[in-house]
Each structure stands twice: as C-alpha cells, then as structure tokens.
C-alpha cells in the first residue's frame, strides 16, 4: 500500500473487497500516511491561498482593535484592510470579535407606542420582549436590531464642532439619513404587523445596577430608574 493510498476497512461485518491487513485494525490515525500526495506546486499554491485567507481573518479585527473611531485605525492596518476588503466583504469576515468589550455596557431597546383607529386601547411595549418573542434566538434577533438602530444613531443637527467642515457635515448627513431610514422602516414594519394607525418608537437605554445600588439600595435589574429615554 502506498504511503498515501487508501485504507481498507471492513464494514457491516461483510468481507472487504480488499484483504484486511493487521495494520487496519489499529486506529486510522496510527496508519495514516505521513507524506502528502499533493505536488510541490499544488502545495505552494495552496500555501499562498491559505496565507491570504488567514490574513483576511486577522486584518479586520486587527483594524478594529487599532481604531479610535470611524476611519481612524492604525496607518499600518488601514491600507491592509483596503487591499483585503473585497475578500473580507465577500466572505463576511469583517468582525471585531469584541464580545462584551471593552466593558459590558447598557442595552438599547425600543419603546413602541401604538394608537388604533378603532376601539382598541392604546398599547405600549418594549422591544425585545421575552413574553412576545419566542424562541430565544428569535428574541435575540430583535434585540440585535434595536442595538443596531442605536449604533446607527446620529443627532438631528450636525454637532457644532463640524459645521465648518463640509466633508464632516456630509458624513453626518449620510449617517442621519441611514438612521432615519432604519427607524422609519421599523415603524412601517410595526404598523403593518399590528394594524395600528399611529406608531411611535423611542430608543431606550437600560443600564445594569451597580453593585452598590443592587446591594445597598435594593435596586433590581428591571427597576424603572435604570431605564432612560434617548433623544431622536
């Protein structure tokens, strides 16, 4: 048997088409060939490809980790990211992997208020709401959407420090448009799902109690004092 040749097993108690050797009774790895059946050229090509891929996995979180804000990453990381961008985008590799980092912070929810044209009473609820959204993964999808809406937020007016900078104002305008687009899409979705005449949504920040608040003041995790409406 060649070093990289097939290994014969007997399956289902039937006799194998090949004579079973003593070595085949050992675990498969023990008899795995050491050599590679691929040619040097093939290995060289694959080596280049895997290097490109590993770089594509590494560069996005590296760029993110070196970033102090949009477009403010390390001058070493930015050009690398630019080169790898098509590959990274295509394979959905553009992640920072900053789970619960740098600190586990507050959550961002959405308060929905509904008014109906008929006799139904007005409604108000928070998204995500575990009692309405099941299974848990489905709930989590809604949770991520309210977090995304928050992450896209841009104030309704440009910050005073950028009004003299046309490029910065344009970036603010684009960010604000994107936020409003998503907020209005949410409103339209809720309206279609509930049949409400009027829908209002408000971003809500829900922070955790500090250890002192929890231990000394008896503030629970869902105490109303921990919720704060955020501006639109």
């Amino acid at each position: 048997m060649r070093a990289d040749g097939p290994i014969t097993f007997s399956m289902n108690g039937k006799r194998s088409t090949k004579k079973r050797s003593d070595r085949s009774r050992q675990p498969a790895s023990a008899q795995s060939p050491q050599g590679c059946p691929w040619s040097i050229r093939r290995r060289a090509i694959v080596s280049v490809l895997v290097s490109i891929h590993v770089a594509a996995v590494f560069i996005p979180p590296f760029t993110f980790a070196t970033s102090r804000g949009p477009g403010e990453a390390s001058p070493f990381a930015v050009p690398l990211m630019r080169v790898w961008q098509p590959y990274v985008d295509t394979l959905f590799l553009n992640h920072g992997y900053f789970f619960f980092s740098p600190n586990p912070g507050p959550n961002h929810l959405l308060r929905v208020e509904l008014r109906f044209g008929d006799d139904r009473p007005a409604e108000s609820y928070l998204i995500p709401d575990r009692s309405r959204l099941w299974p848990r993964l489905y709930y989590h999808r809604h949770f991520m959407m309210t977090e995304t809406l928050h992450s896209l937020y841009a104030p309704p007016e440009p910050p005073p420090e950028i009004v003299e900078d046309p490029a910065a104002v344009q970036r603010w305008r684009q960010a604000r448009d994107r936020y409003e687009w998503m907020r209005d899409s949410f409103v339209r979705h809720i309206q279609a799902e509930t049949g409400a005449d009027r829908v209002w949504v408000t971003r809500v920040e829900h922070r955790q109690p500090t250890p002192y608040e929890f231990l000394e003041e008896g503030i629970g995790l869902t105490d109303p004092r921990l919720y704060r409406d955020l501006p639109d």
Partner: protein
Amino acid sequence: MSDVAVPARGWRGAVAAWDRFWFRPEMPHKLAALRMAAGAMLFYTHLVWAVNLDGFLGRRAWIPRDLSRAMHEGTWAFSYLWYVEHPALLWALHIAALAVFALLTIGLWTRVVSVLALLITLSYCHRLEGSLFGLDQFNTMAAMYLAVGACGGVWSVDAWLRRRRGIFELTPAVSTKVATRLWQIHMCIIYLFGGIGKARGELWWDGFALWYAAANSEYQSTPLTWIIYMPPLMALITHVTVFWETFYIATIWRPSLRMATLAVALLVHLGIAVHMGMITFGLAMIIGNAIFLPQSWFDRWGSSAERGT
C-alpha cells in the same frame, strides 16, 4: 497536533514543519462530527427565521432589502435575497436552504451541499445585517471550512451509500487537514481579539465585568446575580476569562495545556448558554472548540463504530 510541537531547524526545517502543519493527510472523522453538529446549528438558525419570514426578508421586513443593500454600499457583499420579495418565492428559497442544511447534517451529496451551504449562509448574513451576532460569525466560519474539507467521508449517508456499493476505502485527505487548520486558526484569532478587546476595559481589570454581564436582564436566562455575594469568585472568573481568551492562541497548541484550555472554553460557553440566554451561541462555540480535540479520539470512535456494525 504533534505536527505543531516538532521544532523546526533552518529554512528546510521550517518548510517541513509548514508541510506537516498544513498538508499531512487526515482522516475525516473529526470534520464529519463537526459537520453534523454545525450542520444542525445552521439548520436551526435558519429555521428560526421562518417564525416570521416575511418580517425579516419580505415586503414587511424590519430592514427592507433596499436598506440592507444600502448598508453594504461600496462593499463586495452579495446576497441573492436582495432580489427576492415575493412571499411564495421567498418560502421556496427558504425551504430549499433548510433542505441544504439538512442534507449537510446527514451527509448526503456532501461535496455539493457543503458549498451550497456556504453560499446560502453568506447570503442570509448579508441580507440580514442588523440582526446578526456572534452565532452568525460562527455559522459562516463553520460553513466555510466544511466547504473546504472532505467532511462527508464517514458518518454520512454518502458513506453508507458507498458501503452499499461495496466501496470500503477510506482515504485520509489533505483538504481535511487544511480545513481543520483554517478552522483552528480562525478560533485562535476570534479569542485573541476577544481578549484584547476585554483588556481595554476597566471592568475586566477591576474584576466587576462578570457582574455587569450577570446583571444584564435582557441577556439573563437564569439568575447569576448571586455572584455579587462572592466577590473573589466573581473577580477570579472575570480575570480568568480575559487571560484565557488572550492566551488561547498560545495555550491551545501546547499538548500539555490543550485540555485545560478546552475545559475553560467549555465552562465559559456553557455559562453563556445557561445564564445569558445565548444557548445557540454557547453551543456553537463549544462545537467550534471541538476542532482542537485530538484526532485520535474521533478515529477511535470511528473504528469502534465500524467494528460494532
């Protein structure tokens, strides 16, 4: 994994080490086990979109397709779901996607469906930007490497059909090794930057990060606030998490530290699954870590199963 522990001397040694690391053929058992687990996770993840398919992908979507495309403007992302809105067609495509994930899980036409599973997973991720989280990053990673490696050689309908035709050969494949290595390196990079990110936060240094995770009612599924009554334990878990994540990339390759590293991974991700309501993400990362389990375990299970049949 002994391929990693052998020191390389000179450039010839380095080339030989590189060859051993990437190109030593490997039996398919481990990747096949991960195919079943990750395939089931892909199936479930996409099944849940069906709870409100129209609400996520259709005309009444939270994030309509125009907005989804705008969120990817100037990038190379692509999704076939950007071009579909009709409910019947959407459902047909979704059922087809679920069928592909089911076929991947049971290992029927594995070579083809593994590639299809990757394309489908990418399309859903790009279309559903805004409602994604770590689970989707795992799903894409797993689908990517299952498409690279030969993962249907055993524990699959394909293997069963081959045996029925009298074909009993099982060949170690280089592609299996390449896929395994890519998956392992990807896991290391995830944890490295997870650790670096935490190292930038004050709460991960003063020992209170676990409290702020435990006291997060939107995540919480079972109470963990009792941890505040045990400050040393709370701080210890916080610190271990940072160090374990940051140095995973080093410790996981050392045979003497590997099982300890995996044991911490199991505890951390079980904790996330049980206490923080992210059962799917916790399980997904446990599946991801299984890529570092010794190949010999899977081979032994494979041989036992084959002898038992």
